[in-house]
């Protein structure tokens, strides 16, 4: 039995369905992420789990028990809000101790656990400060300590890194992973940032328009998107309209409009005549002056543009038949900024084992 079970949950606001018959389970100890663009229903779903909102249909179960009649304050589920929602009139220590005070934990135990919690997030020195005296990252830690101190069964995090700048966000990501592993509490994380989701999660539910489009491990979401939306939303992706010409154990032979035949790895389900997309990650595409013999698929083209990012360079290559492909090349060689200039004639290609065929029915 899953720790948390969402069963056919629907939430309507007037005529608008924010969440449509969503079902999934979250296992104990998991770092689970709800990922999707704004308005996809992820926050609505989170609010229903927290108890701020109720579904119009369906059930939410924790340890097999229906939560419908349990108000927010009685659910062993705590939330870290996007705005942190620290109590401005209370000190750091009073903020963090708040859940223990509500649970009527005896004074000496409260003190001990407060000390542990503050140590855990490195805030012992700031115990007597007020929230407005803290930096964004410190506020974030207070919110985390406050959410974790009473050891909830589930910690919900609503875009908690959204208010932080990039550098701090990366630091906090590492800290979050570490913290979650240490305390062993199940996290449900809501974000619209796909790199964040990929970096943090054990499993990701990609949502769109109130539905879960795909639920899987990060590497499978990235490597094997189930449809155009997921492929496009997660990372950069070259999407090529393709029809299956032949399928066997060796792989798929696809007819890509304008490109001709392209080889792709087998997926075990597609058969001749299926229409869909070939999803090709930029890092799977190579660019070379001379065709690389290892490439099962190669096409001539012209470099249109490039973006030097530092560790990598992204090339936009226009194939001779008008198709535009993105290719990502690592700048591993020292001092080497780029390899090709706009206007250079090149060959792009990729191995027949690269790419992922997405069936569209």
């Amino acid at each position, binding site marked *: 039995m899953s720790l948390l079970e969402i069963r056919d949950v629907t939430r309507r606001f007037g005529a608008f369905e924010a969440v449509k018959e969503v079902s999934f389970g979250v296992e104990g100890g998991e770092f689970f992420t709800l990922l999707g663009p704004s308005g996809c229903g992820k926050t609505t779903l989170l609010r229903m789990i*927290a*108890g*701020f909102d109720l579904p119009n249909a369906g059930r939410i179960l924790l340890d097999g028990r229906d939560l419908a009649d349990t*108000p*927010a*304050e*009685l659910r062993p*589920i*705590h*939330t870290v*809000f*996007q*705005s942190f*929602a*620290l*109590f*401005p*009139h209370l000190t750091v220590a009073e903020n963090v101790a*708040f*859940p223990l005070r*509500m*649970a009527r934990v005896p004074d000496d135990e409260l003190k001990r656990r407060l000390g542990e919690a503050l140590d855990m997030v490195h805030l012992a020195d700031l115990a007597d400060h007020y929230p*407005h005296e803290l930096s964004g990252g410190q506020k974030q830690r207070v919110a985390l300590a*406050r*959410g974790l101190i*009473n050891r909830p069964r589930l910690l919900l995090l609503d875009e908690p890194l959204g208010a932080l700048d990039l550098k701090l966000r990366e630091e906090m990501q590492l800290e979050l992973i570490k913290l979650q592993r240490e305390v062993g509490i199940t996290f449900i994380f809501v974000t619209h940032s796909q790199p964040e989701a990929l970096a943090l999660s054990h499993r990701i539910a990609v949502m769109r328009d109130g539905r879960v489009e795909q639920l899987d491990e990060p590497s499978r979401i990235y490597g094997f998107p189930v449809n155009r939306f997921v492929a496009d939303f997660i990372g950069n992706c070259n999407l090529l309209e393709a029809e299956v010409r032949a399928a066997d154990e060796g792989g798929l032979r696809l007819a890509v409009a304008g490109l001709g035949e392209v080889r792709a790895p087998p997926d075990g389900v597609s058969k001749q005549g299926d229409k869909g997309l070939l999803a090709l990650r930029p890092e799977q595409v190579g660019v070379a002056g001379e065709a690389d013999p290892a490439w099962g698929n190669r096409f001539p083209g012209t470099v249109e543009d490039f973006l030097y990012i530092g560790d990598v360079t992204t090339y936009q290559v226009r194939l001779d038949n008008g198709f535009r492909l993105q290719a990502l090349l690592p700048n591993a060689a020292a001092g080497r900024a780029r390899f090709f200039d706009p206007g250079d004639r090149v060959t792009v290609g990729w191995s027949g084992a690269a790419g992922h065929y997405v069936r569209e029915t």
Partner: protein
Amino acid sequence: MRRLPWWLILAAAGTYAFLYVPLIVVVAYSFNNSRLNAEWVGFTLDWYRLLFQDEEMLRAARNSLFIALVSSGVATVLGTMAGLAMHRWRFRWLPLLVVTPVAMPEILLGVSLLVFFIQVLHLTLGMLSVVLAHITFSIGFVAIVVRARLAGMDESVFEAARDLGASPWQTFRLVTLPLILPAVVAGFLMAFTLSIDDFVITFFTAGVGVSTLPLQIYSMIKIAVTPEVNAVSTLLMLLTLVLVLAASRLDKGLMRAGR
């Protein structure tokens, strides 16, 4: 820095003179050693001494303080509740209902309260009717101040309290009330000021038995504007000034805490 044109300075000076010279005159004459408000004779505190021996005046002052304390106390509780309600449930007619008495001409409110007390409640006019009347016009002011405070606040703080185990009552006591307290106190001070200064509505609802400071001053100047009236006016002015300053102070402090 550019200098202001002379006519702007003149306009400003004229406006302030118009606003404050009458007040200054009253204050000055309250220290004037002469029965007549005519020319400056010399400094004295006699009128204040006289004032504190005037039994009628002292009774009126006690009445005023009592009425102001009770009515602004009750109005603060009800007004805070109204402010919270206006904030939480966005019924469009609710603010209208709460704020209308504020916008209503005082004379209208006075007359309708008089009619209501006598014809409907069959109440003998006195302390009770004055207190009720003052509560009526104060609630709206408190509600407006409290709602303004709530409007600038991060709503998730209240959800966070619930989320972390606080019951609705605990949330109010431990989070909501401390956060809106500056506005509640400011609202109380405003209500107090309004009550202690009110003449029109008090005039209609006091009946014959009860006198307040403004009523007492009015009855005195029907005969003549004596230096004693100047003295009591000066004291009333001072009290009002202190309260208004305190209220505005709190309002500023409240913005800082709201971050």
